Protein backbone atom coordinates (compact mmCIF):
# COMPACT_ATOMS: atom_id res chain seq x y z
CA UNK A 1 0.00 0.00 0.00
CA UNK A 2 1.67 3.27 -1.10
CA UNK A 3 2.75 5.71 1.66
CA UNK A 4 1.59 8.70 -0.46
CA UNK A 5 -0.86 8.71 -3.35
CA UNK A 6 -2.26 11.49 -5.54
CA UNK A 7 -5.50 10.60 -7.33
CA UNK A 8 -6.59 12.95 -10.16
CA UNK A 9 -5.48 16.08 -8.21
CA UNK A 10 -6.39 19.32 -10.01
CA UNK A 11 -5.93 23.00 -9.11
CA UNK A 12 -6.11 26.19 -11.21
CA UNK A 13 -5.60 29.88 -10.35
CA UNK A 14 -8.15 31.84 -12.42
CA UNK A 15 -7.68 30.78 -16.05
CA UNK A 16 -4.20 29.35 -15.50
CA UNK A 17 -4.15 25.58 -14.64
CA UNK A 18 -1.44 24.71 -12.05
CA UNK A 19 -2.26 20.99 -11.80
CA UNK A 20 -4.47 18.88 -14.07
CA UNK A 21 -5.54 15.36 -12.97
CA UNK A 22 -2.12 14.59 -11.46
CA UNK A 23 -1.88 10.98 -10.28
CA UNK A 24 1.11 9.07 -8.97
CA UNK A 25 1.99 6.94 -5.94
CA UNK A 26 5.06 6.67 -3.70
CA UNK A 27 5.84 3.33 -2.03
CA UNK A 28 7.21 3.34 1.54
CA UNK A 29 10.98 3.96 1.43
CA UNK A 30 10.94 4.84 -2.30
CA UNK A 31 12.82 7.87 -3.73
CA UNK A 32 10.85 9.70 -6.44
CA UNK A 33 12.11 12.66 -8.46
CA UNK A 34 9.94 15.34 -10.10
CA UNK A 35 11.29 17.42 -13.00
CA UNK A 36 9.77 19.86 -15.45
CA UNK A 37 10.39 23.36 -16.87
CA UNK A 38 9.78 26.45 -14.76
CA UNK A 39 6.10 27.29 -14.38
CA UNK A 40 5.11 23.62 -14.81
CA UNK A 41 3.36 23.64 -11.38
CA UNK A 42 5.93 21.64 -9.38
CA UNK A 43 5.99 23.77 -6.21
CA UNK A 44 2.19 24.14 -6.34
CA UNK A 45 1.98 20.32 -6.32
CA UNK A 46 3.97 20.23 -3.04
CA UNK A 47 1.64 22.84 -1.50
CA UNK A 48 -1.33 20.66 -2.53
CA UNK A 49 0.28 17.60 -0.86
CA UNK A 50 1.10 19.49 2.37
CA UNK A 51 -2.29 21.26 2.48
CA UNK A 52 -0.94 24.83 2.35
CA UNK A 53 -3.17 25.16 -0.75
CA UNK A 54 -6.53 23.36 -1.16
CA UNK A 55 -7.20 21.15 -4.20
CA UNK A 56 -10.04 22.00 -6.64
CA UNK A 57 -10.72 18.29 -7.22
CA UNK A 58 -9.10 14.88 -6.71
CA UNK A 59 -7.75 13.20 -3.55
CA UNK A 60 -4.53 13.11 -1.55
CA UNK A 61 -4.04 9.83 0.34
CA UNK A 62 -1.39 9.31 3.04
CA UNK A 63 -0.80 5.75 4.23
CA UNK A 64 -4.21 4.93 2.72
CA UNK A 65 -5.99 7.64 4.76
CA UNK A 66 -7.70 10.49 2.81
CA UNK A 67 -6.04 13.74 3.99
CA UNK A 68 -7.43 15.93 1.14
CA UNK A 69 -9.26 18.18 3.62
CA UNK A 70 -6.77 17.87 6.52
CA UNK A 71 -4.95 21.11 7.59
CA UNK A 72 -1.13 21.26 7.17
CA UNK A 73 -0.35 20.49 10.82
CA UNK A 74 -2.39 17.24 10.79
CA UNK A 75 -0.62 16.12 7.62
CA UNK A 76 2.72 16.89 9.26
CA UNK A 77 1.76 14.82 12.32
CA UNK A 78 0.70 12.01 9.95
CA UNK A 79 4.30 11.99 8.63
CA UNK A 80 4.68 14.48 5.76
CA UNK A 81 7.83 16.61 6.17
CA UNK A 82 8.55 19.36 3.64
CA UNK A 83 11.16 21.99 2.74
CA UNK A 84 10.17 25.29 1.08
CA UNK A 85 11.77 26.21 -2.28
CA UNK A 86 12.50 29.69 -0.90
CA UNK A 87 13.69 28.99 2.70
CA UNK A 88 11.20 30.17 5.37
CA UNK A 89 13.09 29.97 8.68
CA UNK A 90 11.77 31.34 11.99
CA UNK A 91 14.02 34.42 11.68
CA UNK A 92 14.27 35.48 15.33
CA UNK A 93 14.61 31.95 16.72
CA UNK A 94 18.00 30.28 16.76
CA UNK A 95 18.88 27.40 14.43
CA UNK A 96 18.53 24.95 17.35
CA UNK A 97 15.12 26.44 18.29
CA UNK A 98 13.94 26.14 14.66
CA UNK A 99 14.72 22.42 14.70
CA UNK A 100 13.43 22.02 18.28
CA UNK A 101 10.02 23.51 17.32
CA UNK A 102 9.66 21.00 14.48
CA UNK A 103 10.73 18.10 16.69
CA UNK A 104 8.47 18.98 19.62
CA UNK A 105 5.34 19.70 17.55
CA UNK A 106 6.02 17.19 14.77
CA UNK A 107 6.33 14.37 17.30
CA UNK A 108 4.10 15.79 20.07
CA UNK A 109 6.92 15.36 22.60
CA UNK A 110 8.73 17.38 25.27
CA UNK A 111 11.97 19.30 24.90
CA UNK A 112 13.91 16.73 26.92
CA UNK A 113 12.77 13.84 24.74
CA UNK A 114 13.81 15.39 21.42
CA UNK A 115 16.85 17.58 22.25
CA UNK A 116 19.19 14.68 21.55
CA UNK A 117 17.68 14.04 18.11
CA UNK A 118 17.83 17.75 17.28
CA UNK A 119 21.52 17.91 18.19
CA UNK A 120 22.18 14.87 16.00
CA UNK A 121 20.25 16.35 13.05
CA UNK A 122 22.27 19.58 13.39
CA UNK A 123 25.48 17.56 13.17
CA UNK A 124 24.19 15.60 10.16
CA UNK A 125 23.22 18.76 8.29
CA UNK A 126 26.47 20.57 9.21
CA UNK A 127 24.71 23.27 11.22
CA UNK A 128 25.79 22.38 14.76
CA UNK A 129 28.40 25.18 14.76
CA UNK A 130 25.56 27.71 14.19
CA UNK A 131 23.12 26.12 16.67
CA UNK A 132 22.69 29.29 18.73
CA UNK A 133 22.69 31.77 15.84
CA UNK A 134 19.35 33.43 14.95
CA UNK A 135 18.15 31.86 11.69
CA UNK A 136 17.78 35.32 10.12
CA UNK A 137 21.58 35.68 10.12
CA UNK A 138 22.29 32.48 8.13
CA UNK A 139 23.57 32.51 4.54
CA UNK A 140 21.16 31.26 1.85
CA UNK A 141 22.90 27.86 1.65
CA UNK A 142 22.77 27.43 5.45
CA UNK A 143 19.10 28.36 5.38
CA UNK A 144 18.51 25.62 2.80
CA UNK A 145 20.20 23.14 5.16
CA UNK A 146 18.00 24.42 8.00
CA UNK A 147 14.91 23.69 5.86
CA UNK A 148 16.12 20.10 5.53
CA UNK A 149 17.02 19.83 9.24
CA UNK A 150 13.62 21.18 10.30
CA UNK A 151 11.74 18.82 8.00
CA UNK A 152 13.81 15.88 9.33
CA UNK A 153 13.09 16.88 12.93
CA UNK A 154 9.35 16.21 12.45
CA UNK A 155 10.22 12.53 12.02
CA UNK A 156 8.62 12.26 8.59
CA UNK A 157 7.66 9.06 6.78
CA UNK A 158 7.76 11.05 3.49
CA UNK A 159 10.22 13.92 3.01
CA UNK A 160 9.35 16.48 0.30
CA UNK A 161 12.49 18.33 -0.99
CA UNK A 162 11.93 21.45 -3.16
CA UNK A 163 15.02 22.43 -5.24
CA UNK A 164 17.38 22.01 -2.27
CA UNK A 165 20.51 21.37 -4.39
CA UNK A 166 20.36 24.66 -6.37
CA UNK A 167 23.49 26.84 -6.13
CA UNK A 168 25.65 24.22 -4.33
CA UNK A 169 29.30 23.61 -5.21
CA UNK A 170 30.34 20.12 -6.33
CA UNK A 171 31.51 19.19 -2.82
CA UNK A 172 28.38 20.53 -1.10
CA UNK A 173 26.22 18.76 -3.67
CA UNK A 174 28.03 15.46 -3.02
CA UNK A 175 27.56 15.84 0.74
CA UNK A 176 23.84 16.57 0.27
CA UNK A 177 23.40 13.52 -1.96
CA UNK A 178 25.06 11.32 0.68
CA UNK A 179 22.79 12.74 3.39
CA UNK A 180 19.58 12.25 1.37
CA UNK A 181 20.69 8.70 0.51
CA UNK A 182 21.31 7.98 4.23
CA UNK A 183 17.87 9.35 5.19
CA UNK A 184 16.24 7.26 2.43
CA UNK A 185 18.22 4.21 3.55
CA UNK A 186 16.64 4.52 7.01
CA UNK A 187 13.19 4.02 5.42
CA UNK A 188 12.03 7.61 4.88
CA UNK A 189 10.45 7.97 1.44
CA UNK A 190 11.77 10.92 -0.61
CA UNK A 191 9.89 13.09 -3.12
CA UNK A 192 12.37 15.56 -4.65
CA UNK A 193 11.77 18.44 -7.10
CA UNK A 194 15.14 19.43 -8.56
CA UNK A 195 16.85 21.15 -11.51
CA UNK A 196 20.35 19.84 -10.69
CA UNK A 197 19.72 16.61 -12.61
CA UNK A 198 22.98 14.80 -11.83
CA UNK A 199 22.31 15.11 -8.05
CA UNK A 200 18.67 14.05 -8.42
CA UNK A 201 19.27 11.06 -10.69
CA UNK A 202 22.00 9.71 -8.38
CA UNK A 203 19.42 9.24 -5.57
CA UNK A 204 15.93 8.67 -6.99
CA UNK A 205 14.83 5.37 -8.57
CA UNK A 206 11.85 6.81 -10.45
CA UNK A 207 11.15 10.15 -12.22
CA UNK A 208 7.87 12.00 -12.86
CA UNK A 209 7.95 14.71 -15.56
CA UNK A 210 5.51 17.59 -15.13
CA UNK A 211 4.63 20.11 -17.83
CA UNK A 212 1.68 22.52 -17.79
CA UNK A 213 0.57 20.92 -14.48
CA UNK A 214 0.18 17.55 -16.22
CA UNK A 215 2.19 14.37 -15.73
CA UNK A 216 3.61 13.75 -19.22
CA UNK A 217 5.97 10.86 -18.37
CA UNK A 218 7.09 8.62 -15.49
CA UNK A 219 9.72 5.88 -15.35
CA UNK A 220 13.36 5.00 -14.72
CA UNK A 221 15.65 8.06 -14.66
CA UNK A 222 17.88 6.72 -17.47
CA UNK A 223 14.90 6.02 -19.76
CA UNK A 224 13.28 9.38 -19.01
CA UNK A 225 16.46 11.40 -19.63
CA UNK A 226 17.01 9.59 -22.92
CA UNK A 227 13.48 10.15 -24.26
CA UNK A 228 13.36 12.79 -27.05
CA UNK A 229 10.07 14.27 -25.92
CA UNK A 230 11.29 14.97 -22.38
CA UNK A 231 14.58 16.51 -23.49
CA UNK A 232 12.81 18.82 -25.99
CA UNK A 233 10.09 20.03 -23.62
CA UNK A 234 12.22 20.19 -20.53
CA UNK A 235 15.46 21.46 -22.00
CA UNK A 236 13.91 23.49 -24.82
CA UNK A 237 16.65 22.41 -27.20
CA UNK A 238 15.96 20.92 -30.63
CA UNK A 239 17.81 17.72 -29.99
Amino acid at each position, binding site marked *: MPILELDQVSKSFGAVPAAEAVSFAVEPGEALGIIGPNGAGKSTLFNLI*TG*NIGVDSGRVLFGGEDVTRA*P*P*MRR*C*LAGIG*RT*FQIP*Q*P*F*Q*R*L*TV*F*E*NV*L*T*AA*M*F*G*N*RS*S*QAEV*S*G*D*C*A*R*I*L*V*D*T*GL*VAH*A*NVPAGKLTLLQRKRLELA*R*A*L*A*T*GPKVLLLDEIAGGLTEAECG*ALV*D*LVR*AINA*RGTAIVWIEHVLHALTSVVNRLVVLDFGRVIATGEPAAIMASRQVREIYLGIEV
Partner: protein
Amino acid sequence: MSVDALSSFRVTTGTRASGAFALVAAALIVIAFAAPLFVSRSVIQNLFFILTMLALAQNWNLLAGYAGLVSVGQQAFVGIGAYAMFGAVILGGMDPVAAIAVGGVAAVLLAIPTAFFVFRLYGAYFAIGTWVIAEVARLVVAQWKSLGGGTGTSLPRDATRSIWGQEAVAALFGVRGPHAADIVSYWLALVLVIATIGFIYRLLRSRQGLGLAAVRDNQDAARSVGVDALRLKTLVYLAAAFGTGLVGALIYVQKARISPDAAFSVVDWTAYVIFIVVIGGIGTIEGPIVGIIVLFLLQNALSDYGSWYLLLLGLIGIAVMLFAPRGLWGFFTDRTGIELFPVRRNLIVAPGATPDKGGPHG
Protein backbone atom coordinates in the same frame (compact mmCIF):
# COMPACT_ATOMS: atom_id res chain seq x y z
CA MET B 1 29.17 13.95 7.75
CA SER B 2 28.24 10.45 8.77
CA VAL B 3 25.41 10.09 11.25
CA ASP B 4 27.10 9.34 14.60
CA ALA B 5 26.67 9.78 18.32
CA LEU B 6 26.56 13.06 20.27
CA SER B 7 27.55 11.86 23.71
CA SER B 8 27.55 15.09 25.69
CA PHE B 9 25.27 18.07 25.04
CA ARG B 10 23.07 20.16 27.27
CA VAL B 11 20.46 22.84 26.75
CA THR B 12 20.72 25.96 28.90
CA THR B 13 18.62 29.11 29.04
CA GLY B 14 19.83 31.04 32.04
CA THR B 15 22.69 33.56 31.77
CA ARG B 16 24.98 35.19 34.34
CA ALA B 17 22.85 38.35 34.19
CA SER B 18 19.59 36.48 34.73
CA GLY B 19 21.10 34.51 37.62
CA ALA B 20 22.13 37.71 39.38
CA PHE B 21 18.75 39.28 38.60
CA ALA B 22 16.95 36.30 40.18
CA LEU B 23 18.68 37.04 43.50
CA VAL B 24 17.95 40.74 43.26
CA ALA B 25 14.32 39.99 42.35
CA ALA B 26 13.95 37.68 45.37
CA ALA B 27 15.27 40.41 47.66
CA LEU B 28 12.98 43.01 46.06
CA ILE B 29 9.96 40.78 46.59
CA VAL B 30 10.76 40.38 50.29
CA ILE B 31 11.20 44.13 50.68
CA ALA B 32 7.97 44.72 48.71
CA PHE B 33 5.95 42.49 51.04
CA ALA B 34 7.45 44.24 54.04
CA ALA B 35 6.88 47.71 52.53
CA PRO B 36 3.74 48.49 54.56
CA LEU B 37 6.01 48.47 57.63
CA PHE B 38 8.00 51.49 56.55
CA VAL B 39 6.06 53.39 53.86
CA SER B 40 3.12 55.76 54.10
CA ARG B 41 -0.41 54.87 52.99
CA SER B 42 -0.16 57.14 49.90
CA VAL B 43 3.00 55.27 48.78
CA ILE B 44 1.08 52.00 49.21
CA GLN B 45 -1.72 53.38 47.00
CA ASN B 46 0.81 54.48 44.35
CA LEU B 47 2.45 51.05 44.44
CA PHE B 48 -1.03 49.49 44.05
CA PHE B 49 -1.60 51.62 40.90
CA ILE B 50 1.83 50.64 39.50
CA LEU B 51 1.34 46.92 40.20
CA THR B 52 -2.20 46.70 38.77
CA MET B 53 -1.24 48.60 35.61
CA LEU B 54 1.84 46.38 35.29
CA ALA B 55 -0.32 43.24 35.50
CA LEU B 56 -2.67 44.63 32.79
CA ALA B 57 0.35 45.55 30.65
CA GLN B 58 1.86 42.05 30.96
CA ASN B 59 -1.44 40.47 29.89
CA TRP B 60 -1.81 42.83 26.91
CA ASN B 61 1.84 42.24 25.99
CA LEU B 62 1.24 38.48 26.06
CA LEU B 63 -1.55 38.98 23.50
CA ALA B 64 0.06 41.57 21.18
CA GLY B 65 3.77 41.03 21.79
CA TYR B 66 3.88 37.23 21.75
CA ALA B 67 0.73 36.09 19.94
CA GLY B 68 0.53 39.02 17.48
CA LEU B 69 -3.09 39.68 18.55
CA VAL B 70 -3.42 43.46 18.86
CA SER B 71 -6.52 43.95 20.98
CA VAL B 72 -7.98 47.41 21.60
CA GLY B 73 -10.75 45.88 23.72
CA GLN B 74 -9.13 44.42 26.87
CA GLN B 75 -11.20 46.95 28.85
CA ALA B 76 -14.08 44.51 28.25
CA PHE B 77 -12.43 42.00 30.61
CA VAL B 78 -11.44 44.64 33.16
CA GLY B 79 -15.09 45.75 33.25
CA ILE B 80 -16.61 42.26 33.32
CA GLY B 81 -14.17 41.15 36.03
CA ALA B 82 -15.03 44.20 38.15
CA TYR B 83 -18.79 43.93 37.66
CA ALA B 84 -18.77 40.16 38.35
CA MET B 85 -16.95 40.90 41.62
CA PHE B 86 -19.51 43.62 42.45
CA GLY B 87 -22.33 41.19 41.60
CA ALA B 88 -20.84 38.46 43.83
CA VAL B 89 -20.52 40.88 46.73
CA ILE B 90 -23.81 42.81 46.42
CA LEU B 91 -26.07 40.01 45.18
CA GLY B 92 -24.16 36.97 46.46
CA GLY B 93 -22.94 38.43 49.73
CA MET B 94 -19.39 37.18 49.09
CA ASP B 95 -16.29 38.69 50.64
CA PRO B 96 -14.73 41.11 48.07
CA VAL B 97 -11.36 39.33 48.13
CA ALA B 98 -12.94 35.96 47.39
CA ALA B 99 -15.10 37.61 44.71
CA ILE B 100 -11.95 38.54 42.77
CA ALA B 101 -11.75 34.93 41.59
CA VAL B 102 -15.35 35.24 40.33
CA GLY B 103 -14.15 38.25 38.29
CA GLY B 104 -11.46 36.14 36.62
CA VAL B 105 -13.88 33.31 35.80
CA ALA B 106 -16.47 35.74 34.42
CA ALA B 107 -13.84 37.23 32.10
CA VAL B 108 -13.01 33.79 30.70
CA LEU B 109 -16.72 33.03 30.23
CA LEU B 110 -17.02 36.26 28.21
CA ALA B 111 -13.85 35.47 26.26
CA ILE B 112 -15.04 32.08 24.98
CA PRO B 113 -17.96 33.31 22.82
CA THR B 114 -16.18 36.54 21.81
CA ALA B 115 -13.13 34.55 20.66
CA PHE B 116 -15.47 32.91 18.16
CA PHE B 117 -16.29 36.35 16.70
CA VAL B 118 -12.98 38.16 16.78
CA PHE B 119 -10.93 35.27 15.40
CA ARG B 120 -12.89 35.68 12.17
CA LEU B 121 -11.15 39.04 11.77
CA TYR B 122 -7.46 39.75 11.14
CA GLY B 123 -4.98 42.53 11.91
CA ALA B 124 -6.61 45.96 12.26
CA TYR B 125 -10.06 44.42 11.97
CA PHE B 126 -9.33 42.09 14.91
CA ALA B 127 -8.34 45.20 16.88
CA ILE B 128 -11.54 47.09 16.16
CA GLY B 129 -13.60 43.88 16.57
CA THR B 130 -12.36 43.59 20.18
CA TRP B 131 -13.30 47.26 20.68
CA VAL B 132 -16.88 46.55 19.51
CA ILE B 133 -17.06 43.60 21.95
CA ALA B 134 -16.01 45.96 24.78
CA GLU B 135 -18.67 48.50 23.73
CA VAL B 136 -21.35 45.79 23.66
CA ALA B 137 -20.28 44.61 27.13
CA ARG B 138 -20.38 48.21 28.46
CA LEU B 139 -23.87 48.82 27.04
CA VAL B 140 -25.24 45.48 28.30
CA VAL B 141 -23.85 46.07 31.79
CA ALA B 142 -25.40 49.56 31.74
CA GLN B 143 -28.79 47.79 31.56
CA TRP B 144 -28.04 45.78 34.73
CA LYS B 145 -30.31 47.80 37.04
CA SER B 146 -29.53 45.89 40.26
CA LEU B 147 -25.90 47.05 39.93
CA GLY B 148 -26.78 50.70 39.41
CA GLY B 149 -27.37 50.60 35.63
CA GLY B 150 -25.74 53.44 33.70
CA THR B 151 -24.82 55.56 36.72
CA GLY B 152 -23.11 52.74 38.62
CA THR B 153 -23.00 51.83 42.31
CA SER B 154 -20.75 51.32 45.37
CA LEU B 155 -19.77 48.36 47.50
CA PRO B 156 -21.93 48.21 50.65
CA ARG B 157 -20.26 49.73 53.75
CA ASP B 158 -20.15 46.50 55.77
CA ALA B 159 -18.41 44.72 52.84
CA THR B 160 -15.66 47.33 52.53
CA ARG B 161 -15.09 47.51 56.29
CA SER B 162 -14.40 43.82 56.75
CA ILE B 163 -12.63 42.43 53.72
CA TRP B 164 -10.70 39.21 54.30
CA GLY B 165 -7.57 39.78 56.42
CA GLN B 166 -8.41 43.42 57.18
CA GLU B 167 -8.76 43.07 60.99
CA ALA B 168 -5.63 40.91 61.25
CA VAL B 169 -3.59 43.50 59.31
CA ALA B 170 -5.12 46.39 61.27
CA ALA B 171 -4.09 44.71 64.52
CA LEU B 172 -0.65 43.66 63.24
CA PHE B 173 0.30 47.11 61.92
CA GLY B 174 -1.79 49.12 64.43
CA VAL B 175 -3.59 51.01 61.66
CA ARG B 176 -7.24 51.94 61.04
CA GLY B 177 -9.57 49.81 58.83
CA PRO B 178 -9.28 51.64 55.44
CA HIS B 179 -5.47 51.77 55.72
CA ALA B 180 -5.45 48.04 56.47
CA ALA B 181 -7.69 47.41 53.45
CA ASP B 182 -5.18 49.27 51.25
CA ILE B 183 -2.41 47.04 52.57
CA VAL B 184 -4.40 43.87 51.84
CA SER B 185 -5.18 45.15 48.30
CA TYR B 186 -1.50 46.02 47.84
CA TRP B 187 -0.39 42.53 48.86
CA LEU B 188 -2.98 40.99 46.52
CA ALA B 189 -1.69 43.16 43.68
CA LEU B 190 1.86 42.04 44.47
CA VAL B 191 0.81 38.38 44.41
CA LEU B 192 -1.10 38.92 41.15
CA VAL B 193 1.89 40.57 39.41
CA ILE B 194 4.29 37.83 40.54
CA ALA B 195 1.83 35.14 39.42
CA THR B 196 1.20 36.85 36.05
CA ILE B 197 4.90 37.29 35.25
CA GLY B 198 5.63 33.79 36.52
CA PHE B 199 2.90 32.28 34.34
CA ILE B 200 4.01 34.22 31.23
CA TYR B 201 7.69 33.37 31.75
CA ARG B 202 6.91 29.67 32.23
CA LEU B 203 4.65 29.74 29.15
CA LEU B 204 7.41 31.30 27.03
CA ARG B 205 9.87 28.61 28.07
CA SER B 206 7.33 25.86 27.39
CA ARG B 207 6.50 24.05 24.14
CA GLN B 208 3.51 26.38 23.58
CA GLY B 209 5.77 29.39 24.04
CA LEU B 210 8.17 28.15 21.36
CA GLY B 211 5.18 27.42 19.11
CA LEU B 212 3.88 30.97 19.61
CA ALA B 213 7.25 32.47 18.70
CA ALA B 214 7.39 30.27 15.58
CA VAL B 215 3.88 31.38 14.52
CA ARG B 216 4.89 35.02 15.13
CA ASP B 217 7.88 34.64 12.78
CA ASN B 218 6.22 32.61 9.99
CA GLN B 219 2.74 31.12 10.34
CA ASP B 220 2.87 28.97 7.17
CA ALA B 221 6.20 27.40 8.07
CA ALA B 222 4.97 26.82 11.67
CA ARG B 223 1.85 25.02 10.46
CA SER B 224 3.90 22.81 8.16
CA VAL B 225 5.94 21.53 11.13
CA GLY B 226 2.81 20.68 13.13
CA VAL B 227 2.02 23.89 15.09
CA ASP B 228 -1.75 24.54 15.42
CA ALA B 229 -1.63 28.36 15.28
CA LEU B 230 -5.34 28.97 15.98
CA ARG B 231 -5.42 26.74 19.07
CA LEU B 232 -2.36 28.50 20.55
CA LYS B 233 -3.75 31.97 19.89
CA THR B 234 -7.10 31.06 21.44
CA LEU B 235 -5.29 29.66 24.50
CA VAL B 236 -3.43 32.96 24.91
CA TYR B 237 -6.61 35.01 24.34
CA LEU B 238 -8.41 33.13 27.15
CA ALA B 239 -5.39 33.30 29.52
CA ALA B 240 -5.05 37.07 28.98
CA ALA B 241 -8.79 37.51 29.55
CA PHE B 242 -8.59 35.59 32.86
CA GLY B 243 -5.59 37.63 34.06
CA THR B 244 -7.19 40.91 32.98
CA GLY B 245 -10.47 39.98 34.70
CA LEU B 246 -8.69 39.26 37.99
CA VAL B 247 -6.88 42.62 37.89
CA GLY B 248 -10.13 44.42 37.00
CA ALA B 249 -11.85 42.88 40.02
CA LEU B 250 -8.94 43.73 42.33
CA ILE B 251 -8.79 47.37 41.10
CA TYR B 252 -12.48 47.85 41.88
CA VAL B 253 -12.20 46.17 45.30
CA GLN B 254 -9.87 49.05 46.17
CA LYS B 255 -11.93 51.71 44.34
CA ALA B 256 -15.21 50.37 45.87
CA ARG B 257 -17.13 52.59 43.40
CA ILE B 258 -17.99 51.51 39.84
CA SER B 259 -19.79 52.75 36.71
CA PRO B 260 -19.94 51.25 33.18
CA ASP B 261 -18.09 54.20 31.59
CA ALA B 262 -15.28 53.94 34.17
CA ALA B 263 -14.95 50.14 34.29
CA PHE B 264 -14.96 49.85 30.46
CA SER B 265 -12.85 52.97 29.79
CA VAL B 266 -10.69 52.46 26.69
CA VAL B 267 -8.29 55.22 27.82
CA ASP B 268 -7.65 53.97 31.37
CA TRP B 269 -7.43 50.23 30.68
CA THR B 270 -6.17 50.11 27.05
CA ALA B 271 -4.54 53.39 25.97
CA TYR B 272 -2.28 53.69 29.06
CA VAL B 273 -1.53 49.95 28.89
CA ILE B 274 -0.53 50.12 25.20
CA PHE B 275 1.81 53.06 25.86
CA ILE B 276 3.37 51.28 28.85
CA VAL B 277 4.13 48.23 26.68
CA VAL B 278 5.18 50.10 23.52
CA ILE B 279 7.40 52.67 25.26
CA GLY B 280 8.88 50.01 27.58
CA GLY B 281 9.44 47.38 24.88
CA ILE B 282 6.80 45.15 23.30
CA GLY B 283 7.48 41.41 23.08
CA THR B 284 9.63 41.32 26.23
CA ILE B 285 8.69 40.71 29.91
CA GLU B 286 11.08 43.45 31.04
CA GLY B 287 9.49 46.01 28.65
CA PRO B 288 6.24 46.60 30.57
CA ILE B 289 8.23 46.88 33.84
CA VAL B 290 10.34 49.68 32.34
CA GLY B 291 7.22 51.17 30.76
CA ILE B 292 5.18 51.45 33.97
CA ILE B 293 8.10 53.17 35.74
CA VAL B 294 8.41 55.70 32.88
CA LEU B 295 4.63 56.26 32.88
CA PHE B 296 4.55 56.78 36.66
CA LEU B 297 7.43 59.30 36.54
CA LEU B 298 5.74 61.17 33.65
CA GLN B 299 2.41 61.15 35.46
CA ASN B 300 3.93 62.76 38.55
CA ALA B 301 5.88 65.31 36.51
CA LEU B 302 2.90 66.34 34.38
CA SER B 303 -0.01 65.59 36.72
CA ASP B 304 -1.19 69.19 36.86
CA TYR B 305 -1.02 69.71 33.08
CA GLY B 306 -4.26 67.79 32.43
CA SER B 307 -4.55 66.54 28.87
CA TRP B 308 -1.00 67.61 27.96
CA TYR B 309 0.10 64.46 29.80
CA LEU B 310 -1.84 62.10 27.52
CA LEU B 311 -0.94 64.22 24.47
CA LEU B 312 2.77 63.83 25.28
CA LEU B 313 2.33 60.11 26.01
CA GLY B 314 0.73 59.69 22.58
CA LEU B 315 3.56 61.54 20.84
CA ILE B 316 6.22 59.50 22.68
CA GLY B 317 4.37 56.28 21.79
CA ILE B 318 4.27 57.26 18.09
CA ALA B 319 7.96 58.26 18.09
CA VAL B 320 9.01 55.02 19.78
CA MET B 321 6.92 52.90 17.38
CA LEU B 322 8.38 54.69 14.34
CA PHE B 323 12.02 54.99 15.35
CA ALA B 324 12.67 52.39 18.06
CA PRO B 325 9.97 49.73 17.62
CA ARG B 326 11.55 47.49 20.24
CA GLY B 327 11.08 50.21 22.88
CA LEU B 328 13.46 51.36 25.62
CA TRP B 329 14.24 47.85 26.91
CA GLY B 330 14.57 46.49 23.36
CA PHE B 331 17.06 49.30 22.63
CA PHE B 332 19.03 48.41 25.79
CA THR B 333 19.00 44.64 25.33
CA ASP B 334 19.94 44.86 21.62
CA ARG B 335 23.10 46.75 22.60
CA THR B 336 24.06 44.94 25.76
CA GLY B 337 22.59 41.50 25.17
CA ILE B 338 21.49 41.45 28.81
CA GLU B 339 18.21 39.64 29.38
CA LEU B 340 16.55 39.41 32.81
CA PHE B 341 14.02 36.81 31.60
CA PRO B 342 16.04 34.80 29.03
CA VAL B 343 13.99 32.40 26.94
CA ARG B 344 16.47 31.35 24.25
CA ARG B 345 17.34 27.62 24.41
CA ASN B 346 21.11 27.36 23.90
CA LEU B 347 22.58 24.03 22.76
CA ILE B 348 26.01 23.47 24.32
CA VAL B 349 27.92 20.65 22.62
CA ALA B 350 31.15 19.39 24.18
CA PRO B 351 33.89 20.08 21.56
CA GLY B 352 34.76 17.06 19.43
CA ALA B 353 32.09 14.88 21.00
CA THR B 354 29.34 13.57 18.73
CA PRO B 355 25.80 12.40 19.61
CA ASP B 356 25.26 8.86 20.86
CA LYS B 357 23.19 6.35 18.91
CA GLY B 358 19.53 5.92 19.72
CA GLY B 359 16.29 7.88 19.28
CA PRO B 360 14.08 7.69 16.15
CA HIS B 361 16.96 8.76 13.92
CA GLY B 362 19.62 6.57 15.51
